């Protein structure tokens, strides 16, 4: 079946602008995760959604970052007032339960 999809695949934005990144998880997967990968910090957890439970936001680096998951499916990660240090590849993953996580291709964000 279809894997995790993310859009856009690349995004270039000016410092100070807001961006929205989208993730479509695998159908039926109850859990959805956002990670980011940058040269300086490696792969970092950002936020985790599981069913109707309150999300685990413990990895969000600042209050400029937020995410929502509508209808238990699609998720949007929003970064407000982007900064150059936000430049990274943002990866979404989904899983059924707490086992293997299936990753999307990522969104490469460049803040100029």
């Amino acid at each position: 079946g279809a894997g995790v999809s993310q859009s856009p695949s690349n995004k270039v934005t000016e410092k100070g602008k807001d961006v929205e990144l989208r993730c479509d998880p695998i159908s039926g997967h109850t859990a959805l995760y956002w990670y980011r990968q940058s040269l300086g910090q490696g792969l970092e957890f950002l936020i985790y959604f599981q069913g109707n439970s309150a999300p685990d936001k413990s990895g969000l680096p600042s209050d400029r970052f937020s995410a929502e998951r509508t209808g238990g499916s699609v998720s949007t990660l929003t970064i407000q007032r982007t900064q150059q240090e936000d430049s990274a590849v943002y990866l979404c993953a989904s899983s059924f339960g707490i086992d293997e996580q299936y990753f999307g291709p990522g969104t490469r964000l460049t803040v100029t």
Partner: protein
Amino acid sequence: SQQGEEDPQALSIQEGENATMNCSYKTSINNLQWYRQNSGRGLVHLILIRSNEREKHSGRLRVTLDTSKKSSSLLITASRAADTASYFCATAGAAGNKLTFGGGTRVLVKP
């Protein structure tokens, strides 16, 4: 912050040779997973080993886990040029959800 340390950071081998990489972690885990990444984009899940397991095989992959030493190893046997990639270990904590990744090992398999 990263939980895991991986070594080596880079590995260059000839096609047909075996590749071994190691991962160490710091806190108790529910499971440990290995992923492969090509060209800095999506991660591909390779294998998951639970905290009560010691060894697991999948095709040419063999993973070991030593919870007393908080370490794991990934062995790729009879490597192929297509195995060239970065390999990451990731640990899932007691709740078994969010993953904490190691720094990765870049593997180059020369034909």
